[in-house]
C-alpha cells in the first residue's frame, strides 16, 4: 500500500500479475475465437464470413437462437412474478421471517447446479413427486410427461434462477421511501393500486436488473437445458457443444458462440440502456 498522493501509477503495481494473466488466458483466447470463426472450413483454409452467412441462411440455426432467447425471457418473467410477492412479504415482516426468506433464497444459490437440476428430475420424472401426487389424488389417470418438456424446463430454470431475481428486487424495495406508500394509503388507495402505481414504477430498476440477470443465466444454463429439456430440445449452448466437440467443426462453433454472446450481451446492454434513459429520476438499483 502506498499512501495516497505519492505516485498514482505505483498504486497499480499489485494489479500487474492479474492483468498479465487476463491478457494470456482471457483476451488472447477471445481473439482466437474471433479468428477461428473467420476461417472458411474446419481445415482452416482461407478467411471469409462464410460461417456467419451459413448461420443467417439456416432456418434451423435461427430457430435455435430465437428459442434460446425466448426461454431466457420466459424464465425471467416467471421469476419476476414470484420475486415481487416474496420481496413484499420480506419488507413487511419482522427479523425472523426476514432471516427465513434470506436463508431460502441463499439455499439454491449455494447448492450445486447439477444437484438442483437432479432434484427437478426427481420432481418431474415419471415416478416423480408431481405424478405420484396427482395419481394418488385421482386427478390424473396416467402419469404425465413432464420431464423433457419445454414447460418442465421453464419451471426448473425459474426455481434455479429465482435468487438472482429476488435479491435485486428486495434491495430496491428496501430503498423505497415508506412515506410514499403511507401517503397513498392515507389518500385511500387500495393495496393493489399502491403496488401498481407507487411500488412497481419506483422499484422497476431493480426488477429490470434482476430480469437481465435471470435472462442471461437461463439462456446459458447448459446443464438444466440438456437434462430437464432433454435431447429433443436443442438450444444454443448444446448446439455449440455439439458442433465443437461432436462434429469438431471449430469455425462454425466459434461463430455460433460469438453470435450467441453478442445476442445475449446485446439484449442486456440495450435493455439496460433503455431503462436508464426512460427511468431517469427513479432511484437506480
Amino acid at each position: 500500500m502506498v499512501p495516497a498522493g505519492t505516485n498514482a501509477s505505483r498504486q497499480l503495481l499489485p494489479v500487474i500479475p492479474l492483468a498479465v494473466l487476463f491478457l494470456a488466458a482471457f483476451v488472447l483466447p477471445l481473439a482466437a475465437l474471433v479468428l477461428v470463426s473467420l476461417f472458411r472450413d474446419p481445415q482452416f483454409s482461407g478467411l471469409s464470413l462464410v460461417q456467419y452467412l451459413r448461420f443467417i441462411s439456416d432456418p434451423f440455426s435461427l430457430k435455435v437462437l430465437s428459442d434460446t432467447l425466448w426461454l431466457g425471457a420466459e424464465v425471467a418473467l416467471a421469476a419476476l412474478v414470484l420475486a415481487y410477492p416474496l420481496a413484499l412479504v420480506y419488507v413487511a415482516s419482522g427479523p425472523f421471517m426476514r432471516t427465513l426468506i434470506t436463508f431460502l433464497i441463499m439455499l439454491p444459490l449455494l447448492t450445486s447446479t447439477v444437484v438442483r437440476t437432479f432434484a427437478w428430475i426427481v420432481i418431474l420424472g415419471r415416478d416423480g413427486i408431481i405424478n405420484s401426487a396427482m395419481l394418488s389424488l385421482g386427478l390424473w389417470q396416467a402419469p404425465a410427461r413432464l420431464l423433457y418438456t419445454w414447460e418442465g424446463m421453464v419451471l426448473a430454470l425459474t426455481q434455479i434462477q429465482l435468487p438472482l431475481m429476488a435479491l435485486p428486487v428486495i434491495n430496491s424495495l428496501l430503498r423505497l421511501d415508506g412515506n410514499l406508500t403511507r401517503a397513498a394509503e392515507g389518500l385511500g388507495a387500495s393495496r393493489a393500486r399502491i403496488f401498481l402505481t407507487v411500488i412497481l414504477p419506483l422499484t422497476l430498476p431493480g426488477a429490470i436488473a434482476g430480469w437481465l440477470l435471470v435472462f442471461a443465466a437461463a439462456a446459458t444454463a447448459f446443464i438444466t437445458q440438456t437434462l430437464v429439456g432433454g435431447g429433443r430440445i436443442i438450444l444454443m449452448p448444446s448446439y455449440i457443444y455439439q458442433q465443437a466437440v461432436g462434429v469438431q467443426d471449430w469455425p462454425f462453433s466459434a461463430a455460433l458462440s460469438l453470435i450467441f454472446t453478442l445476442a445475449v450481451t446485446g439484449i442486456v446492454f440495450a435493455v439496460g440502456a433503455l431503462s436508464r434513459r426512460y427511468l431517469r429520476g427513479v432511484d437506480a438499483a
Partner: protein
Amino acid sequence: MQRSFIDRLYFGVVGTLTSFGMLLLLAPTLVVLVISFTDGITLKFPPPSWSLRWYVELLQSQEIIAPALTSLKVAAAATILSAVLGGAAALGLARSRLKIARALDALFMSPMVLPAMAFGLSLLLVFNLLGIRLSAATLVLGHTIICVPFVIRMVGASVQQLNPVLITCSLSLGASHWYTFRRITLPLIRRGIVASCFVAFLTSFDNVPVSLFLADARTEVLPIKLWAILEGSLDVRVAAVSGVIVLLTLAGLVCAEIFGGVSRQIGSR
C-alpha cells in the same frame, strides 16, 4: 366494501405466490436429501423404503470418487490463485482514480457478463492452436478467470470501507509497508477475503461450461461426470453424491459465516 374486497384479493394473491415461491425455493434441496436415503433402485418418490445403500455404493464407486477429488483439487488451486492475484488487484484498483484502473476493473469483471460456454470454447481453441496439451493446469487457469470477478467485487467492497487514515497513521508511526499490510489492511479486509474464497471455491467446484471443453479423461471433474451419468441413465448414486454435496456446502457455509459473515457479503453483492 369494494375496497376491502380488493385488498383481501391482493393479500390473497401475494400470500399465495409467496408461499409458492418459498416452497419452490426449499423443495428441491429437501427432495434430494430425502431421495438419497431410498432403498429402491429408481427415483420413485416417496421412496418405498429407507436405507443407506446408495451412500455405501458411492464409497465403492471409484469412477465418482476420482472426479470428486479432482474437482476439490482444481477448486482449491483456482481459489488460491484467484484470491491472491484478484485480492492484490482489488487492493491496487480500489483507491485508484486513473482511467486505466477503470478499464482494468471492467476487464476483470467481464467473465461474469460473457456466456461462459464461449469462454470455455475459446480456451480450448487457443490451447489447441498453441499446441498446449490439456491438463489439470489448463483447467485451473480457466477456473481462475471465472472466479476472479467475485474476488474483485467482494475484496474491493471491503477495501472501500477501509479508512485510509489508519494506513497513513501506521506508516507515519514508522511501520513498514509490509507490517502495515499484515497488521492493519489484512485484518480489516479479512471478511471480504473469506467470503470471496468461499464463493470462488463453490464457483469452481460447480463450474460446467469451462470444464466441459477443458476436462478430458484424465482430468474429469465431478459436475461433468454427474451430467454424463444423468444423460445416460437416472442413477440413484447421483442422489447420494448430491446429499454429500448439500451437507458439505451447509457445513462450509457455517464455517464461512463464523469467520467472515458470508451471507451479508453475498447479499450485498
